[in-house]
């Protein structure tokens, strides 16, 4: 393709976009129609403009959304990012999917996942004491919403409602200060901090996990000198790093926060007799519905 031709196409696309923008500005929703009379160049221009603007496109009489595949992809990324607690990334992709799709089922899925995103983030950040009180309205909203997702079949609605029930049980456990639940919440927070390269914060969450499970940790540490040392060093490290310790001693040697988290996960797995990270992920995630 020559440079001139390329420039010609992009100028024409720009003009077409301006036309669409102007019509939309005046509340219309223009549909681009490809007919058999259109030249290849016209078709290219229309398809490009439709994709850029998320505008409906009709080829002859068949509706076609050139961005639909992108929407599906973004929804899928959004879901995955949510289940790995990357809330911002997840929301950005879901928002993109919302603009790109014209498929009503996908629209409702995007909407649901946006809600779940908000919910999960709120649960992980919740103050345990006020968790039930503060989060109950969100649960209520989502439950009512699921009933209004009319394109989900009953089994799918049921699937998400059950997930919400499980999650609500977890929130209740937080408010009741059940140690395991609080630990799951802290482990999730620690993992998020690590993802954001907030290492000091990750150490703090780990230390809080230790404080929560102090008796069990101490019992194990009593048998394991190295672990004992790690815990002492962690405390000392935090007091120096946070400036709480007035003496400016050299920081003790300490495992990297990622490694320390793995050590803690092993310990927690031993204490609770369950793969603790997996369990946390299982509780604080939304496996998508799979139709049988």
């Amino acid at each position, binding site marked *: 393709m020559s440079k001139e031709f390329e420039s010609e196409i992009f100028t024409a696309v720009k003009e077409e976009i301006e036309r669409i923008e102007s019509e939309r*500005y*005046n509340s219309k929703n223009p549909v681009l129609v490809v007919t058999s009379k259109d030249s290849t160049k016209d078709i290219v221009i229309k398809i490009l403009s439709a994709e850029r603007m998320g505008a409906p496109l009709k080829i002859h009489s068949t509706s076609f959304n050139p961005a639909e595949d992108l929407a599906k992809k973004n929804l899928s990324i959004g879901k995955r990012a949510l289940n790995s607690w990357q809330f911002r990334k997840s929301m950005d992709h879901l928002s993109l999917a919302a*603009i790109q799709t014209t498929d009503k089922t996908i*629209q409702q899925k995007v909407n649901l996942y946006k809600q779940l995103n908000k919910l999960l983030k709120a649960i992980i950040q919740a103050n345990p004491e006020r968790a039930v009180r503060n989060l109950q309205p*969100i649960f209520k909203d989502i439950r009512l*919403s699921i009933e209004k997702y009319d394109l989900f079949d009953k089994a799918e609605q049921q699937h998400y409602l059950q997930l919400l029930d499980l999650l609500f049980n977890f929130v209740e456990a937080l408010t009741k200060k059940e140690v395991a639940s609080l630990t799951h919440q802290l482990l999730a927070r620690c993992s998020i901090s690590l993802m954001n390269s907030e290492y000091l914060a990750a150490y703090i969450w780990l230390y809080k996990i230790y404080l929560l499970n102090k008796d069990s940790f101490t019992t194990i540490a009593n048998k394991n000198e190295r672990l004992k040392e790690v815990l002492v060093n962690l405390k000392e490290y935090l007091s120096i790093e946070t400036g709480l310790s007035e003496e400016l001693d050299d920081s003790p040697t300490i495992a990297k926060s990622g490694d320390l988290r793995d050590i803690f996960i092993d310990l927690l797995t031993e204490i609770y007799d369950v793969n603790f990270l997996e369990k946390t992920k299982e509780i604080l995630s939304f496996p998508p519905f799979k139709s049988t």
Partner: protein
Amino acid sequence: MNEQLVNSLAYLRDNPKQPKFVDFQVLAERDRKAEKGNYLFLKLYEPNTKAFLCNAFVYPKEWYPGRQKQPNFSHYQNVLRYCYAGLLSDNQPPELLLQVLQAVWFPIADATSGTNPSNGMNGYLIPLKFIIAPDFNVTGAELESVFNCPAKYFYESFLGLQRSIRLTPTSIGYVRGNAIHKGIQYASNEWIRSQDPVKAMRAYHRAILDVWRDNFDILIRKSYKRGPNKDLKLPIQVDSIVVDNIIEQFEGVSPTQLLNESLLFSPERGISGRADQIILRKTFEELWEIKTGSRYYIESDYDPFTGAAHPGGMQAFAYHDIIKKITGRTPKTFIEFFDADAGLSEDNPEIIPLEQHAVIKRRKINLEEENCEEYWNLLLQTRNIAFAIESGLLSGYDRYKINRFLSKRYMPALGTDFNLLSSNWFRVCSYCPSNQLGICADGKRMLDPDIWLHFPQSLFEYWAWYFKQLKFELNNVKRHLYRLATTNIDVLEKQGVTISNLKKVKFDSYRYLLTLKSAKRIFTRIREGDDVFVTPTHLIPGEIFSIEGKVQSLRSEEIVIKTRSIIKGRNQKVDTFRVDQVENVLFSKWQSRSLTDFLFGAMARSGIQGRTITDSELPYTVQLLLGLQKPKHIKRVPRTALLSVLDSSKVEAIEKALGLKAGEIMLVQGPPGTGKTRMIAQMAKEMFAEAYLLRSQEVDEATPLTKAVLILANTHRAADEVIIKLSAFPDLKPYIIRLESYSKEHPPEVQNFIIPKIVAYEETMGEKADAVKLVTILQQGNELFNKAGIVVGTLGSVGSNLLKGVNFKWIIVDEAGQATEPACLGAFRHLTSKTDSTDGYPRIILVGDHFQLPPVVAEETKNYTPSIPKSLCKAGLIPGDSLKTSLFERLHRLWGKKFGNVIILDKQYRMNEAICKIIRTAFYPEVDYQPANEEIGKHSLTDFLSSFEKDLIEKTKEEIIAQIFNPKQPIVFINTANDPKAFEGQQDVEIQTESRFNLREAKIAAIIVAHFLKQYQETAQLEIAKQVGVISPYRNQNNLIYSEMRAIGLADEIIENIRVDTVDRFQGDEREIIIISLTNSNKENIIGQLHSEWRRLNVSISRAKAKLILLGNRETFIKPGGDKNEIEAKEYFRRVFETIDALTREGLATQIDSKNIKT
């Protein structure tokens, strides 16, 4: 060219390549074709003369050649670009006024293009900081709102979205704040006037009592089981603190040195507002902004050092800048914060000097510094974003764009510096309507954040079509203050919005009545009841020192204004004033709120969420309104017993109304005199009975506040009429409420239905505010309200607190033909709590007549009307329709007689047969419009005058008068076509609608009335005069008729009893004798804009019961001439004249040549 502009440009030229702070205004036209990079290319012109000045470039992030360090954020270019893009998309010229505050000048040697050497401007300008469109007025409160959360501002201010009025009544905190505000105002005025602390305290309590009374609708919605709450107690608790503070604060301040709630406006900043208090002393010394509230719910910024939240900083900052701009002096500015949670403590109220306020401290702004970058950035970013959002230029009606902008509350696409927005935004969510609806992508609650992508196109276009027109009207109002401030006074006077050279005659300081006199005759659009500014002639209206008021009376040379304050400052000695009409945004605002509520309500009630819904998935009522569904057959609920008191068409209407199902709509068309109001009263009674019967069978515990009927009228007068008719049913009285917090202007029989009046608030409370006593009264009021089953109000009162959370089974809209469609949609705002079903909609009955006066819409708005989208053609809209087309008219057109849900009342109870025939033939040829009985059909002047026969002095010897008032001929047409003296005159003003007059017609009208009345004794004259009405569409002509009646020697008390008025004000009224002066009489056969609306003719004629005297030039009104509207109207005039001809042949009318009448 104005001096400021010349000096500023010279200053920039003298300091080339250096950014300098300036302050001048230019008109900037964008030239896109000349843009080759990421800059905006502008051509700058002098705003008034449009003389070219120079070219300009606006770069991103305030860049200019040679700039070393750019700010991280800068909104200027981004927002300006969006505004120009908006103009482009809207096909408007790419021109905007810019107030340039910082710029750099580059001489020609550095210029890349464009110069204008002829004016010596060899170079180009790079504006860095500027205000976009200072001609668009943004209030201080709006700035505060946009600062707190731009997304909330978008939802509330642009869209008019409100927290659902279906749910929670307004918090009493609002009343508390108001009470303290007003208390300070009253007490400070009183202290300064009398220097008496006891009187000041009394004034403070009077203010609390007034505020409680005026907000009774808010107060009675609480239960007060534990006695008065802190919101009621706080204003009383702080009374001595307030008065002591006032005594201290206003030491040595005279009455003219204190400005309370004074209007401030700067045409250079495009910001206005009402500062709570300005203390002048010698100069502008102090500025006080008073805030009340709970510290935990402050919607403003956190102090960066302590984390404490401070209220109202942005607002005070804006007023501070306006005063600085207007006066050149820096006032000491304070925010006085009454914390409702702190109760009585030493630091309550807290006085926060502006420089210590969180908003200012966080941005490290030095208020004293001449040109502080952050000072301008904060003010200008807030102002420009507010403009871009509010004007609609940012998003237009592009839902994709709106969705994108609202994806983050701070709208990052604008390039905003987030540090210049409130850091306390999360609290704002609690009050945000978008959060309540769950549609904000960044809010606490999330239900459907992409709702903008989910509206069906038909619904969205319906909303946008009406919304655009309302917005156009609102935007015009937003530019009004600037127009007043910057347009030559002569031009304004010609347009009829200003009256100049008025001399102060007197000022009644007790009633605040200012009388002004003009040396010449007053021609104006200003009318009684209009809001105006009174400003000393040498000052700019609205800027400062304008007194706000309402026109009390307006005569040919005198105007009396009820002002809100006394004349302030040194201007009290000035005796020449100007009066300017102020446009009110409220009317368009509540209409746009109803419209937007309908849009979101329709989505919520579809029962579907999170996806695009189709037309067929919309609620049934919405589909009906959009023409997507046909109305269903209505099963009548028999009420045959009513046939003994009502005619059959009314009974049919009532039976069908009772048979409506939830969400169904019915129309009742009532041509003139058919007794619509009487029918509404009976209908309401039957509905009330029906609802009570139903209630006894199925009590809905979940919605205890379900009431039977809500009657909404277009005007207070019509609502009062309904009340009067309803009061004819004594058993119903305890169950009727008139929706009005308090007003003295209602007829006494109506006042008995206004809650504060019923519970004798004024009498019980006395002079001292007492929260315990108040609670007792409120509980009585609450009981009354709970018991009520019929609520009557205006369409404008749909937001009343008395209606919040209350459901109605039926809603009747009276005068629906006179209400715009968005106004009518207000009726749909009161729905049951079943939010997601059609069952949630009430049964709606629209009563009106689209052949009588249509909705009042500004002429500019009518001309603006956008083209009708295809989807709305299904809804019955046709080319030529506008905001002036009522919902009633549209649905009548759409449904006609096809579905049996349009009932036409055909028996009239006013006119005799001859007058009725004119109306039937000319306006209702398809309706069997007849007098209801023989007595009415044969009613003549003899019946009316028989009781006055004993007072007859002597029958007139004037043959022509005898002929005119011959009782056997109910119609008289006095033709002036052959009368050379009867040509109209016109004042040399642009207000065509007011300027026409016809002296000869005025004289004839006056002489006819005078000679007729003089046959009777004086007491009888007074009574008969009450049944005489003179109608012309022109105010000017009416004034002339009044003065001719005076000139002819009719006594003033008799003239006062004769109603001489415009048609528009006559609707709803009737008289035995009606004289119509058509006024227009010219060889060009132009009948003018007012007559082009042929419905006026219908209303004028149909006011007459026994005698109709039509006075005018037949030729002018039937011969070709004028535009297409005139041609359409002339067809109706032709039909009227032809019917008069036929009646003449039947001996029921007489036609007289006006030449034969001596004056």
